[in-house]
Every structure is written in C-alpha cells, then in structure tokens.
C-alpha cells in the first residue's frame, strides 16, 4: 500500500509544480499546461482516495532485486560517460562485455570470458558493418571509435 500512497502524493505535488510554473507564461501559452495540471491534480486526489479506501490492488515488491537494478543503472551511467569520451563502438563493446560477464550465472573462467568476448566482438562487428559500412549513419564519436 505504501508505494501507491507515496506515488499519489508525488503525482499531486507534480501537478502543483506544473500549475505554479505555468503561471509564469503568457496567458495563451499557459492555458493548456494549466488545464493539464488541474486534471493531473484531480486524478492524483482520486488515486489517493482510492488507495486510502483500499480500492487499489497493492503492488507486490517483495523480493525486488534492488541491488541488481541499481548496479544495472550504474553500469548504464558509466556507459554514457564512456560513450561521450571513447566513442560508440569502444564503449558499447566494453558495456556488452561487462554486462554479459557480470550477469553470467556460471563461474567466470577462461572459457566463459572467451565466449562472451567473441559474442561482444561479433555483435559490435555486425553493428559496425551495418551503421558505418552499409547505412553510413553518424554515431557518437570520442577519441577512439
């Protein structure tokens, strides 16, 4: 029940922020966002009441793998940083390899590393052929490729 309650409060605050920020725009530019903020506010209040009256089925978050999700998001952030400095292919190769090795269930040994290294090489090789060879599209570039 707690997560729904928190969500309804966040939604209400969010609608208030939109309403408040819309006030700084010209009347014509503000009319649509203000109307939306009022609708969002009303929906947030109804949602809150539904939660309080136990009309909402509570989401079951028992056994949620928080550590795994946080690790994934950290890896994603590092990938974006590497993308900016190293370039698309190098960063993507490193990300693919780290993610597949990190999420492997088996014990890391030479064979496992080699399989994932080959898999990353083939995948990035196909992307290189497709994007830079065939389609000739621009991709994020850094000091490497």
């Amino acid at each position, binding site marked *: 029940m707690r*997560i*729904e309650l928190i*969500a309804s409060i966040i*939604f209400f605050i969010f609608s208030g922020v*939109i309403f408040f*920020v*819309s006030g700084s*725009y*010209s009347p*014509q*530019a503000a*009319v*649509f*966002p203000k109307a*939306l*903020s009022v*609708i*969002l506010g009303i*929906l*947030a209040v*109804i*949602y809150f009441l*539904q939660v309080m009256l136990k*009309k*909402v089925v509570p*989401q079951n*978050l028992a056994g*949620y*793998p928080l550590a*795994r*999700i946080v690790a*994934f*998001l950290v890896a*994603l952030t590092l*990938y*974006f940083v590497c*993308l*900016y400095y190293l370039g*698309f292919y190098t960063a*993507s190769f490193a*990300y*693919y390899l780290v*993610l*597949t090795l990190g*999420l*492997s*269930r088996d014990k890391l040994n030479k064979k496992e590393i080699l399989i994932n290294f080959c*898999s990353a090489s083939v*995948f990035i090789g196909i*992307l290189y052929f497709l*994007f830079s060879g065939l*389609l*000739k*599209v*621009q*991709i*994020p570039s850094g000091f490497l490729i």
Partner: protein
Amino acid sequence: METLQQFIHYFPQALTVSNLAVLVLGTIVGLVLGALPGLSPTMAVALLVPFTFVMTPSTGLTLLGSVYVCAMAGGAISAILINVPGAPANIATLFDGYPMSKQGKSQTALNMCFISSLIGGLAGMVAMIFFTPPLAKIALKFGPSEMFWVAVVGVTCMAGLSTGSLIKGLFGGTFGLWLATIGYSPMLGEPRFIFSDTLAGGINMVAALIGLFALPQMLTLMEGIYEQKKFTEKLKPEKGILKKNIIEVLKMRKPLTIGSLIGIIIGIIPGAGGQVAGLIAYDQTKRFSKDQSKYGHGDPRGVVAAECANKAMAGPSLIPLLTLSIPGSPTAAVLLGGLLIHGLFPGPELFTEHADIVYIFMASLVLAQFSMFFFGILMARYSYGIMNLPKRYIIAGVVILSVFGSYSIQNNFNDIIICFGIGFVQYLFQKVGIKGGPVVLGLILGSIAEGNLLKAMLICQGTGESYWNYFGTGTINIILILISVFSIVYSLYSSVSSSRK
C-alpha cells in the same frame, strides 16, 4: 472501387528489389524479436524507426509495417512452445496452444497459428484498404474544435480500454500530453518547462518512444534475469503435415469468421489492441461452440480464433491512425512516429498528396502477411534456439540499439539522455500500474490538442462566439464527446462489475 483501383495501380511499386529485401528483413527481425519472451512488438518497431532515416519513405514504412505484422506472429511461438506469450496479443493463444504442445502437437499448433494469422491478417487488410480512404474524406470536414475532440477521444479511449485502471490510464495520457508541451511552443514560440539545456529542443518523439518501450522492458527482464523457461524439444515436421493443417483450418469456418470480425471491430477502436481482440474472439468462439469442454485442453479452434483475431486487428488499427492521427494500439502509435519523421501527416492529404507512399505501404502490409506465413512456418522449426538465448545478451543488445536509435535522430547526445530518462520514469510508472500506451498517445496527440485548442480560441475571440457553443455544438463534436464519455463510463462500469465478481 476507386480505392481498389488505386491499390492495384500502386501495388507493382511495392515489388521493387529494395522493398522486397526490406520486407524479408523486417519479417525475420519481427518474428525473431516477437518470439523472444519479454520483447514486445511495440519495442521492436520503436527500435527499428531510426533505421528508416536512410531509406525512402515507402521503403522505411515497408520495414516498419512488416515488423509490425510479424512481431505479433512471432509472439505466438513462445506462447505455444513455452507457455509465455511473446506479446500481450498472444495471451489467448496459449490457452490451447500450450496444451497442444504438451500433447506433442507443437508443429500442428504452430502451423495452424500461422495459417489462421494469414487469413485473419488478410481480412483486416481488406477492411483497412476499403474503409480508410472514405473515412479520410470525412476527416476533411473537421475543424479545430473537432480535431481537439479527436485528440481527447484518442487519449480517453486508450486510457479507458488499454489499462486496468481508468484513473491510472488517464493520468498516463495526461502526463503524455504535458510531455508534448516541453520546449518551445510551436504556435507562440515561447519556451516552456525547459528546466535544463537537455530539454531545450523539446521531447523528441522517436527518442521518447524508444525510451518508453525499451528501457522499462529491459529493467523488467533484469528483475527476473535468472528465471528462464527452456525449450529443448527439436521440431521435426512430419511429411505433408502443412497441407493437412491447411485443410483442417479452412474447415474451421466459425472460429475464422468470429476471429476476423472481432479483430476488425476491435482494431478500429483506439486503445483496445490485440490482447482484447484475442481474448474476446476466444471467448465468443467458445460460447458459440457445441462442445465447450475441449477448450483449454488443446483445442485447435482456440488457437485459430485467437490468432485470427489478433492479426485481423492489425490493419484496422491503422484506419483511425491514417485518417485522424489516432493510433488503434501502442504499436500503431510508434508507426505514427515513423510516418511523422518522414514528413507524412495523417489525414485526407495523405491520400491525395502522398498516395504513392500510402498505397505502397498498404501493399507491403498485404505482402507482409504472406512473408509472415512463409518465414513463420520455416522459422518455427528453429525457434528453440531463439527462445533459449540468455536474457543478458538481449538486454545488452537492446540497450546498445536504443542508444544508437535515440542518438541517430538528430545526432544529439541529449536525445540519449531524454530516451533513458523517460524510460526510467515509465519503469517507475509501471510499478504503480501506469502503462506506456496512454503516455505515448498523449505525447503524440499533445501538439494536435493544444494547437487546435488555441486555434479554436482565436476563432471564438475573432467571431465573438462562445467557447461552449463552438466546442459543444455540431454533429461531429457531439459524436466525439459522446464517444469520449462512453469510453470513460464503459471503463468505470467494467471495473465496478469485475470488482463485484
């Protein structure tokens, strides 16, 4: 008849080498991505939108259309073989498909699935070809007030019909409408909600589409990364089984007729989607059957009705999209994104100024039905290899493709941040039951709603007519308001009746 003549006139242009090559590629990619549990057809189409930038509009739309048609068919493979629907549209398929598989009739179930998909898909295409141009002509009569109500109808229908909760659906839709206001106002040029430089260009639709449908799914896959059902049986087709199955399916006239009709009707209603079509068709076929006891225990009629219906809705779901910019399903919403980035705006002009592109697109959708049937049956034999692919490879691959897709739209790093930012917000939304469909529809319809609202207000100020009179009178306005109210009332009624049960 004029529509049919136009269709026949442009049909040969869909048969160019490049279009056919892209059609085959789209079919294979669609079937593979559809067969992978956890990847939805919507995400498959969203990931491929950026690939169409380097193609001509007709070739690009051929790619998206073939993926759109085939990903749903691919989803039936995992539903039948491992009891996990590849897409929500395949839920009804597993009721009888999986029991058939357990009885050692996997090949028969898969063959019947693709045969009924072909029949249902073609029925839906016929409806689309005949109904779309006349409806587009009706759209000529729409002024700003009607277009404003069209946008409202789109959001309320999607919110009411596609999600479990009306309040959550409406919240998602309204949030999507607000997302569309970020950036410089297209009519007034005034900056709004630009909290950081990243948002200065507004929310790019394709980046948002990829984020909304790819990242939440990858995070959900991460949650259950070590839970994967394995399929070990290698399919060895019996000689002559396909011919036998074709004759059997053609004899099942009742499931085919019910499936096709329900699919077509559901397809036209915005937001209902293939899941609703499949479930209603399954239920109705069962109800009209003399021996209902076999359903749920491996009755091929259940597979035929469900698959026929969810493919029959694919074509008609494009009717409101091509005429009024209202997508019939979340996947159709992504297709709309594909149309818009090629400078094609739905409405009557689409059929006059870009008739070649639209009719080639329609022709490619018809061809995609045949390629889906051919490659589907061929690939089903090797599907165990696809379905057993470890999830970690899928996650890594999809994240990298999402980065490429969001960057390549404008060669802008900010779009990657927007894509993943919106994706993360949507993931949190999903945790409280707000689905992506209404959000994306709100995002697409936001500029239509606001632009026409402002135009209508200016007209009222100029003519001295009251807002109430301008927005609330006129046959089309009243019909659209009634549809919107009906979708809300119906959704409330069904949630109240289901809670009583």
